[in-house]
């Protein structure tokens, strides 16, 4: 089983997020990303062309994924590493825990990885008596709180400096109470001091991968803190966990994708660290792990190939869609209830854990289209969310009153004469109801609207009836 989901309680989650004043204060930061991304895109004249080639690279790879996976596996072997395939989350966890045990691991340093969240890796390691230590600053902070990332690249974006300070004071027992932790740099220094010892004690380092390069058997991670480098270099063994769609054919392809990745994500031209790992330490290497394993995880993705949701597998996990999403901006990521939030999560979650559990997410969108506008690989996210709504409608999974209401409306809308007659009546009635002010502050069946906003009342008669009366009179 994958990570636990509360996606089916999206509405309740959203309500909780909206009344959480602390969270709402923290979320205002996420809006900085949009400004930075557009500045980065403007600085690079060929940015739009790069997006096209990024899409083409991913499409080509997905069309020949089996071949590239095999080529990748061969190259990893040649460089002295091993590739393991996991069909689902259970198998992936078993393989990783098994590997850790084979290295006699008591503690594991982890770089940031969303697929590790997806398969519930930390819980599995803990159950096996192995301590997982998150080394990304944000991931470390939320691990102390027992929370999940609320954003795929900024996992602790739902927290403020002050939240993190109080977590550090609670968890770091020998921290003097008079130590100043008011600035981000000071929090970073504190985390660094604690984590340095953990890095040195870790038996195994686990990272995700932004790309797996078939040409060379290389895994690539991008980070801004350098924690990923220590995670994969210091411990005795390095385990990479990555899903199948992370494959790209060549280093040149990876370089092209890197050019759109950070610009779309944080607005950086390049992330601070871009780290390439190929196999274990060689005889003449100054450092590196003694063993190198890659666990390539399917967990529902191969079923998306060739279907309506294949385009989603182009996703390079930049987070631009959520940064620009008005719903994500209002709620943060936890309300989405599983691993992946925002528009990409709204498409991916039902694909990976089923539309019954994740079906609310693709409905909770205004279809404003900004996600598609900024997606570096041009995934038609609104179209795919609509696909999910269609599936739900076909399978009668959408709420019954909603379906009946829609059917009732469609009955009238497909009968123009009846429609004109009934809308004429409705216009008159609503006009009368709102006559004193020109608007209504309450309307049954539309309380989802009127609870929060006034509703403009009609001008009295419909356009079509007035037009007909007018043109009839002059004929």
């Amino acid at each position: 089983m994958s990570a636990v989901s509360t996606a089916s309680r999206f509405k309740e989650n959203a309500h909780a997020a909206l009344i959480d004043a602390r969270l709402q204060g923290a979320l205002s930061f996420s809006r900085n990303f949009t400004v930075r991304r557009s500045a980065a895109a403007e600085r690079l004249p060929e940015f739009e062309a790069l997006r096209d080639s990024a899409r083409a690279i991913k499409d080509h790879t997905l069309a020949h994924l089996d071949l590239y996976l095999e080529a990748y596996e061969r190259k990893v072997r040649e460089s002295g590493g091993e590739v393991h395939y996991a069909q689902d989350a259970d198998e992936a966890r078993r393989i990783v825990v098994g590997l850790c045990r084979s290295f006699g691991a008591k503690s594991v340093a982890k770089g940031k990885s969303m697929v590790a969240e997806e398969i519930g890796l930390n819980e599995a390691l803990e159950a096996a008596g192995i301590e997982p230590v998150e080394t990304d600053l944000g991931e470390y902070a939320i691990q102390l709180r027992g929370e999940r990332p609320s954003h795929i690249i900024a996992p602790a974006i739902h927290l403020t400096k002050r939240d993190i300070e109080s977590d550090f004071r609670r968890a770091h027992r020998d921290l003097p109470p008079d130590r100043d932790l008011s600035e981000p740099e000071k929090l970073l220094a504190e985390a660094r001091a604690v984590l340095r010892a953990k890095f040195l004690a870790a038996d195994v380092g686990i990272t995700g991968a932004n790309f797996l390069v078939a040409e060379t058997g290389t895994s690539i991670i991008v980070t801004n803190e350098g924690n990923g480098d220590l995670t994969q270099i210091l411990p005795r063994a390095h385990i990479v966990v990555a899903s199948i769609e992370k494959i790209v054919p060549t280093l040149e392809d990876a370089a092209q994708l890197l050019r759109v990745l950070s610009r779309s994500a944080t607005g950086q031209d390049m992330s601070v660290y871009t780290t390439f790992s190929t196999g274990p330490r060689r005889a003449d290497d100054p450092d590196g792990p003694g063993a190198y394993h890659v666990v390539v995880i399917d967990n529902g993705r191969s079923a998306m190939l060739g279907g309506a949701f294949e385009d989603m597998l182009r996703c390079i996990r930049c987070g631009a869609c959520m940064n620009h999403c008005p719903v994500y901006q209002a709620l943060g990521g936890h309300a989405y209830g599983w691993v992946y939030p925002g528009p990409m999560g709204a498409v991916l979650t039902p694909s990976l854990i089923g539309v019954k559990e994740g079906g609310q997410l693709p409905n909770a969108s205004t279809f404003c289209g900004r996600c598609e506008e900024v997606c570096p690989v041009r995934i038609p996210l609104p179209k795919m969310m609509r696909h999910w709504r269609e599936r739900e409608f076909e399978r009668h999974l959408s709420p019954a009153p909603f379906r009946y209401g829609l059917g009732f409306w469609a009955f009238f809308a497909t009968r123009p004469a009846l429609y004109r007659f009934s809308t004429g009546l409705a216009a008159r009635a609503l006009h009368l109801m709102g006559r004193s002010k020109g608007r209504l502050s309450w309307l049954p069946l539309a309380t989802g609207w009127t609870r929060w906003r006034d509703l403009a009342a009609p001008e009295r008669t419909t356009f079509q009836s007035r037009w007909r009366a007018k043109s009839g009179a002059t004929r």
Partner: protein
Amino acid sequence: MGEDMNDSAHRRGAGRKSEPRVGLFVTCLVDVIRPTVGFAAVKLLEDAGCRVVVPSQTCCGQPAYNAGDRLSAKALARQAIGAFEGCDYVVVPSGSCGGMLARHYPALFADEPEEAVKAERFAEKTHELTSFLVDVLGVTKVDARFSGTVAYHDSCAGLRELGVKAQPRRLLQSVDGLSLVELKEAETCCGFGGLFAVKYGEISNAIVSRKAEDIKNARADTVLAGDMGCLMNMVGKLQREGSPVRARHVAEVLAGMAEGPSIGESQKEPAR
């Protein structure tokens, strides 16, 4: 269709052959809530030399399409395509409905080649009102007066599906007495999203609250947009908060028909 095709040129006693025959797709919200916008669109089109007809119509089908009900959406699409067969152009005072007609109808029939051809042809002749005036007819100014400071909100579908951005601003700049200010986040969604506003009212409210803040900060006395849905959402929030900012469809201002009550106001209410 004859009896439904009451045309305006007939009323004006005009009827030159060179006049493009423009079918006005009035949209259900304009039809039911704010007919003034429809008449404003007619005036703008006639002033630009068009012959305007209003075929019998209901809804473009977007609510069904976005709710996952493809069958109802297709039925309504066929109905609209048929109704406007005799028109050179279809013009819509809405980016959202315009996007449905011009972008989503072809997608809707992608699996039915014969219908897809019709949908494509229909899509090609369909335009949002302000972009039709500027891009197709080459209108650069309008003959209208409006005293006040306005902010223009870019409706999402108009902006992203149809490229409506400069056209309404260009025309607004020619309105006598009008001063145009920009919202800080003009391109951010207002939170309407059709049925979303009712189904996820609380989230929609959070989004429109932010939009209302942006509007108030811009110090405009009127907010304009090209879509009734967004306008009703924004002004509904502003009114609930007790803000005096008014809302009008951009066509009302461009046509010089902004004398009457603004959206959600009554005749009796004294001008603020």
